[in-house]
């Protein structure tokens, strides 16, 4: 078919896509073009296009920032702790739920554990600031019963990362079990029947049938999570941190916010953001490539 004929056949499809493509062009591809701010002496009055270039000045300045090393380290450490815990906990909970034979109990449990996923970090931040308060939070009240001295969870650098990982797992583990539970239902029941005939107990069945049955999806999610090594969770940290815990809890995203939006250092903040975007691009591409190779996964 030549292009005129194709156009005649396909024009309604092009028309359907047009509005969405336009929005994406402006608000997703526009900011990509806006990354040029990293190489400009950006002036808000002159805009992205009109501001003069200043070469690698912003990059050099970025490399001289004293906090940057610590911020990148925090980002990596927090993100990796979250990735590991966020992979393991849902697998265990999905296996436990799989052993529940009472459907009503299973469904009720699922309803409750999915819930925190749908609440924002502003709401959860508000709740956590209250319950973790060293003076009158309920958590420290409970610790007091066991004669443990009050802990300033959100003001102590040692505790802060721990709080971040635990609360992130608490919010997301339930929702993450969905995919594992779906994988479990697709395991052929004949395998279990055969194992029972061979005399395998439930533990052996779990070890030799259930876990291997889940393995492909575990491998897939583990590889895809590689793309998140620089996503330590802006929403969560922004709502929980304060200057007392910057040294252990400040991450690239929060740093860019303070540098760019609060202190109006647009060029340098964009340069830091560009660094993050480039590393993320490499990691996400790698993760998709591995997922494709290992699990035959395709995005679309």
């Amino acid at each position, binding site marked *: 078919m030549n292009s005129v004929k194709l156009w005649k056949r396909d024009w309604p*499809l092009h028309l*359907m*896509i047009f*509005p*969405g*493509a336009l*929005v*994406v062009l402006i*608000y997703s591809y*526009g*900011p*990509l*073009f*806006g990354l040029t*701010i990293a190489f400009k002496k*950006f002036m*808000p009055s002159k*805009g*992205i296009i009109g501001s003069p270039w200043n070469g690698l000045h912003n990059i050099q300045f970025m490399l001289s920032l004293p906090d940057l090393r610590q911020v990148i380290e925090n980002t990596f450490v927090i993100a990796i702790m979250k990735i590991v815990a966020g992979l393991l906990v849902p697998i265990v*909970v999905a296996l*436990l*739920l799989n052993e*529940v034979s009472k459907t009503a*109990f299973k469904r*009720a*449990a699922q309803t409750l*554990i999915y*819930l*925190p996923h749908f*609440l*924002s970090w*502003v*709401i959860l931040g*508000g*709740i956590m*600031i*209250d319950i973790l308060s060293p003076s*009158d939070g*309920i958590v420290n009240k409970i610790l007091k019963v066991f004669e443990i001295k009050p802990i300033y969870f959100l003001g102590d650098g040692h505790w802060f990362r721990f709080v971040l990982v635990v609360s992130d797992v*608490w919010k997301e583990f339930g929702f993450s079990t969905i*995919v594992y539970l*779906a*994988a479990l239902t697709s395991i052929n029941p004949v395998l279990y029947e055969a194992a*029972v005939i061979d005399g395998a*107990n*439930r533990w052996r069945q779990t070890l030799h049938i259930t876990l291997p049955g889940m393995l492909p999806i575990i491998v897939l999610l583990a590889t895809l999570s590689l793309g998140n090594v620089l996503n330590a969770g802006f929403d969560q940290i*922004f*709502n929980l941190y*304060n*200057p007392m815990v910057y040294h252990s809890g400040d991450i690239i*995203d929060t740093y*860019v*916010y303070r540098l760019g939006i609060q202190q109006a250092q*647009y060029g340098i903040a964009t340069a830091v*953001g*560009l660094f993050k975007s480039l590393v993320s*691009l490499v990691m996400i*591409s790698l993760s*998709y490539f591995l997922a494709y190779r290992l699990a035959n996964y395709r995005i*679309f």
Partner: protein
Amino acid sequence: MDKMTPGYRFFSILNYGLLLLISIGCVLPLLHIFALSFSSASAVTSGEVTFWPVKWTAAAYRNIIDRPEYLTAFWVSVKRVALGVGLNMALTVLIAYPLSKEPRQFRGRTLYAWYFVFTMLFSGGLIPWYMVIKETGLMDSLWALVIPSAVPIFNVLVLLNFFRGLPKELEESAKIDGGGHFIVLFRIFLPLSLPALATITLFAVVNHWNSWFDGLILMNRVEHYPLQSFLQTVIIKQDPTYLTAKELELQALMNDRTSRAAQVFVAALPVLLVYPFLQRFFIKGIVLGSVKE
């Protein structure tokens, strides 16, 4: 199915107990906030309140209703959800349908698909995003909260995979009857896709209701803040350096413990209300979107 060995019976009891604890643990913090919000200030101060209100009173809620700022923010959020979700759904459907075609049915399909997916791989980051919104003149208007986020790519992928699973024969018979793409989409595909549509509607509603950062930096005045941005400013942000006089005043008026609890609970309530109705759909939807055979 299995014979229950004593060992397995013991495990089973432990398992039910553990899962019960885990499930309750997921809602206890919320229950505590609920209890605080309906307890008298004196009971809260003396630390008697755990998971049920002590000396019931709606004083904290009256305090919120008396502040027009809270209601204004709530109304901004309602408008944002209505407008934003409408826009999200319209664009999601219109993008997912053409992308669900095979390349031989729609030349350019693969190119378009990459065009959208690429934005998930590489983004401009905060500052360029902020500047583009500023330079396109959306600052301080409701449009800034709904237009830049109008195309939720993840939802597009969920719906397009659902569309692909529909029987091909339906479309072919409609084509033979002379129906074009719009007829196929609106008369055949959409009515058959209610579970997937319910799922992505839930995601879109929750996403718009929960968004707080865009409101915080794109709105100039506290009267234009949606509820979550308002809460962020009034009850979470403790660093007064960057707050306006108006925001400081609100912090002083609405920052006692019971008022904070009541504000948090009211902001969570719409999600708690829609969640049970849509929950039965989303499991199916998320699984379809994320795992493909």
